[in-house]
């Protein structure tokens, strides 16, 4: 009997869930009506109460962001997920960001829509805020570098869209945003190397002279041997040689100490280095040649360099994309507007180090003046300036690996 009632109760519950009325179900079992009705009504009541429970929208959102990034970067994300981590996220500034987002939107669809928003669209701020959550959720340095690089790619796509749409003002802003993001990505990439920002381009006069000078003498015996070894790696040495005929010989020695730490590494960075070589001849002729030191990548160890290079190449492509779009827009623009486009273009160039423009040389000198502020490093774009001839070529940016604060700011 009891078990039969269990079955009947379950059957009625299912029937009602699938749309049938309570009454019609009870009619099927009039003999159990008295027992079934109150119990079935109880299930209704439970369902009603449960319907009041909803996850907080901001939680639901960033949980989704978290899952999505875990999908992209499986291991690290998943492992990083601990109650402590999420608690931090909940109570930390990510909450503030999320809360801000929630104010701007109320549904996940808005969030999704914002991911496609362009700078001139209302949801763009939402997109930026959402991205910050992504950055906040990236736990490891590698993840951060990947996320920051992805964001740089997004900034470049926006820049391209604005340029293609002929929106000069927005494009200039987009170029600026791209530069900022480029710098963040570079800083994050460098951080993944586990070393301090590789001392690539040291302003001749400014910073680090003491350290540098020491090399010739201080350099330990083994160090001496390294220089020749370094020579093989094409990019690194070539620039210096070309640029500084006689005196320059010393600089390479300067570099060696740093590199010694990671001897073989020098050879690794293929793609990155190439640009330097090509470019070297023309620009570097300027005295500051001393700065032209092997691209930072050279210092990195092999294990990490593959990932790093991938990210850098991705950044280079983004830069090329943005620059190409701006150049295209400039060409199409009416004469009076060309200057505006050039300004936007200059922003990008100052970073990527392309060269043609005269202003470039100004940049170089200015940068030299700077002690490599920008919070990150001493390095400046100079090497880039020296290098990359065509802005469109992805390779050019590469050397700009050094985090630099460009003059355009």
């Amino acid at each position, binding site marked *: 009997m*009891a*078990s039969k*009632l*269990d*079955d009947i*109760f*379950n059957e009625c*519950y299912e029937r009602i869930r699938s749309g049938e009325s309570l009454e019609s179900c009870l009619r099927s079992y009039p003999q159990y009506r*008295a*027992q079934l009705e*109150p*119990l079935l009504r*109880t*299930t209704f*009541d*439970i*369902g*009603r*109460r*449960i319907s*009041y*429970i*909803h*996850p*907080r929208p901001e*939680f*639901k959102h960033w*949980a*989704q962001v*978290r*899952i*999505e990034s*875990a*999908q*992209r970067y*499986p291991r690290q*994300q*998943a492992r990083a*997920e601990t*109650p402590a981590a*999420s*608690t931090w996220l*909940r109570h930390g500034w990510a909450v503030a960001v999320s809360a801000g987002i929630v104010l701007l939107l109320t549904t*996940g669809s808005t969030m999704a829509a914002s991911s496609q928003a362009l700078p001139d669209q209302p949801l763009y701020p939402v997109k930026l805020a959402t991205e910050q959550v992504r950055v906040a959720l990236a736990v490891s340095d590698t993840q951060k570098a990947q996320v920051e690089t992805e964001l740089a790619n997004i900034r470049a796509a926006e820049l391209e869209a604005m340029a293609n749409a002929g929106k000069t003002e927005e494009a200039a802003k987009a170029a600026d945003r791209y530069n900022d993001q480029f710098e963040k990505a570079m800083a994050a990439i460098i951080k993944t190397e586990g070393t301090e920002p590789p001392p690539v381009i040291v302003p001749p006069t400014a910073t680090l002279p003491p350290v540098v000078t020491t090399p010739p003498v201080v350099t330990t015996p083994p160090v001496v041997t390294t220089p020749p070894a370094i020579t093989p790696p094409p990019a690194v040495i070539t620039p210096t040689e070309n640029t500084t005929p006689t005196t320059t010989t010393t600089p390479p020695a300067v570099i060696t100490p740093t590199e010694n730490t990671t001897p073989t590494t020098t050879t690794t960075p293929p793609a990155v280095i190439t640009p330097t070589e090509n470019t070297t001849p023309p620009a570097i002729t300027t005295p500051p040649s001393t700065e032209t030191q092997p691209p930072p990548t050279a210092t990195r160890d092999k294990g990490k360099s593959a990932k790093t290079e991938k990210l850098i190449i991705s950044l280079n492509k983004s830069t090329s994309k943005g620059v190409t779009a701006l150049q295209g827009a400039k060409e199409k623009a009416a004469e009076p507007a060309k200057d505006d486009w050039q300004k936007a273009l200059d922003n990008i160039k100052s970073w990527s180090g392309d060269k043609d423009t005269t202003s470039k040389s100004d940049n170089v000198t200015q940068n030299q003046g700077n002690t490599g502020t920008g919070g990150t490093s001493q390095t400046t774009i100079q090497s880039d300036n020296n290098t990359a001839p065509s802005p469109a070529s992805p390779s050019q940016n590469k050397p700009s690996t050094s985090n630099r604060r460009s003059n355009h700011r």
Partner: protein
Amino acid sequence: MLSEEYLVQQAVNGNQAAFTQLYNQNFDRIHRYIYIKVRDRAEAEDLTQDVFIRALESINTYKWRDLPFAAWLFKIAHNRVIDHVRKQSKEKRAPLEEAYTRSVEDPIQMTERDYEVYQLKVALEQLPEAQRDVATLRFIGQLSIAEVARTLGKSEGTVKALQFNATASLRKALYGKLDG
């Protein structure tokens, strides 16, 4: 609309969009299920997220024939809740937090709803563990009898009996009376 089985297959093969869709389909109910069991919003959020992270981690080992996807998720959730409760058992449990219900314009109505959710939680807590497990999976998780049975490793007959008794007990706890 794509069948859940198809989506799961896609997700198993690494299709991110498929997993996201499964996530969207199940997030709310998994969250409700956990929330009603742990009684604390922060814990519920942590655990809900953790369930999906774990599901993502092991999705490639998932086999449809073993357990329907929703049941699989609830099984993960169920185990996570058990682990969590065990860990917390020695600690003083926090007083029932305000139930966070969907924001409603009327604060009085909101308070009433919070209270009703609170009552339900208390009622569920008073149930014997087996009944509580069945009731939460069935009424809150909305799983079928078969899914509940597979999730809990019990026979369908047992689950039906537990469901019936749990409903009667809940009625008593909620309204203070027994019927027939």
